[in-house]
């Protein structure tokens, strides 16, 4: 059961909703699968399923529903990859797609920033790398709770686990990220 909070800035039509959510959803998918083409496929499938099956639902329910679909698709993708690796174990793990890129490659160039902003930018890059090093569950939890601002209940529903697990994953994610930042830049957060 989804517990949905209504926000006044929520889009009221499907086009605006998809437009608003697409880049964050792409980033989440890309962080999980590490392949641009696969992330785009997952994004398209999730959007399709949302529009076909849930367009009639109230707009405030679209966001949790969409992220639940996306997380299920990502989980399916990982299962499929495991099976593929088992069946074709003699093949290399490298993706044949030459356009495959690391999710963290799409960041701004720090050299263009003035000196006073350079440190901050480097810290943020470290934080992003720390985010990449988190476990799948911790990263999902952090992104949904912190970046997307979802409630604990919605996050638990999206991830298919208890609210207690969400709190644990989130706490560990924050703790790890904090320690990564502290280690890398010799600062105390």
């Amino acid at each position: 059961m989804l517990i949905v909070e209504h926000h006044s800035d929520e889009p009221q039509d499907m086009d605006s909703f998809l437009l608003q959510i697409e880049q964050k959803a792409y980033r989440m998918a890309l962080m999980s699968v590490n392949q641009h083409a696969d992330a785009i496929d997952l994004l398209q499938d999730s959007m399709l399923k949302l529009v076909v099956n849930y367009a009639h639902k109230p707009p405030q329910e679209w966001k949790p529903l969409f992220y639940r679909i996306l997380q299920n698709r990502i989980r399916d993708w990982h299962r499929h990859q495991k099976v593929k690796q088992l069946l074709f174990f003699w093949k290399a793990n490298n993706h044949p797609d030459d356009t495959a890129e690391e999710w963290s490659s799409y960041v701004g160039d720090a050299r263009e920033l003035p000196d006073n902003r350079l440190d901050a930018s480097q810290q943020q890059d470290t934080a992003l790398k720390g985010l990449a090093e988190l476990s799948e569950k911790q990263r999902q939890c952090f992104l949904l709770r912190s970046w997307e601002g979802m409630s604990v209940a919605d996050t638990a529903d999206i991830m298919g686990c208890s609210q207690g697990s969400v709190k644990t994953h989130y706490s560990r994610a924050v703790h790890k990220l904090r320690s990564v930042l502290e280690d890398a830049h010799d600062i105390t957060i």
Partner: protein
Amino acid sequence: MTLQSKSGTGEQQINSRLDQANAALPQSVKQDIAAARLNAQAEALALTKKRSIVRNWHFTLPATFTSVGVALAVVVLVSYRQTPLIPVLPAELLTLDVPLVDLALLEDLEFADWLAEQQEVLL
């Protein structure tokens, strides 16, 4: 600075970096994302139309009555054609001459039958 606000600051840094990374996505990636959205919407529209066509075809009243009528007509026609026909009398029997002796015997038999009936009435 409290622990909560400190961790909040760290989270804000990460969130703002994620937002920046999204803003700095290459144009080709942005185009791919937009294409994915448009494809999803187009496919959804086509799928919805297809479903509604199938639903209308199955459940409209005129279509139901027409299909029931056609089915009944087929059943009647098939059963009518399958009824066993009375065998036609061979043409030789119609043109064959009946012998006169047989006719005389038949008349005698009818007279004897009538006579017996009359006697029964009188008794």
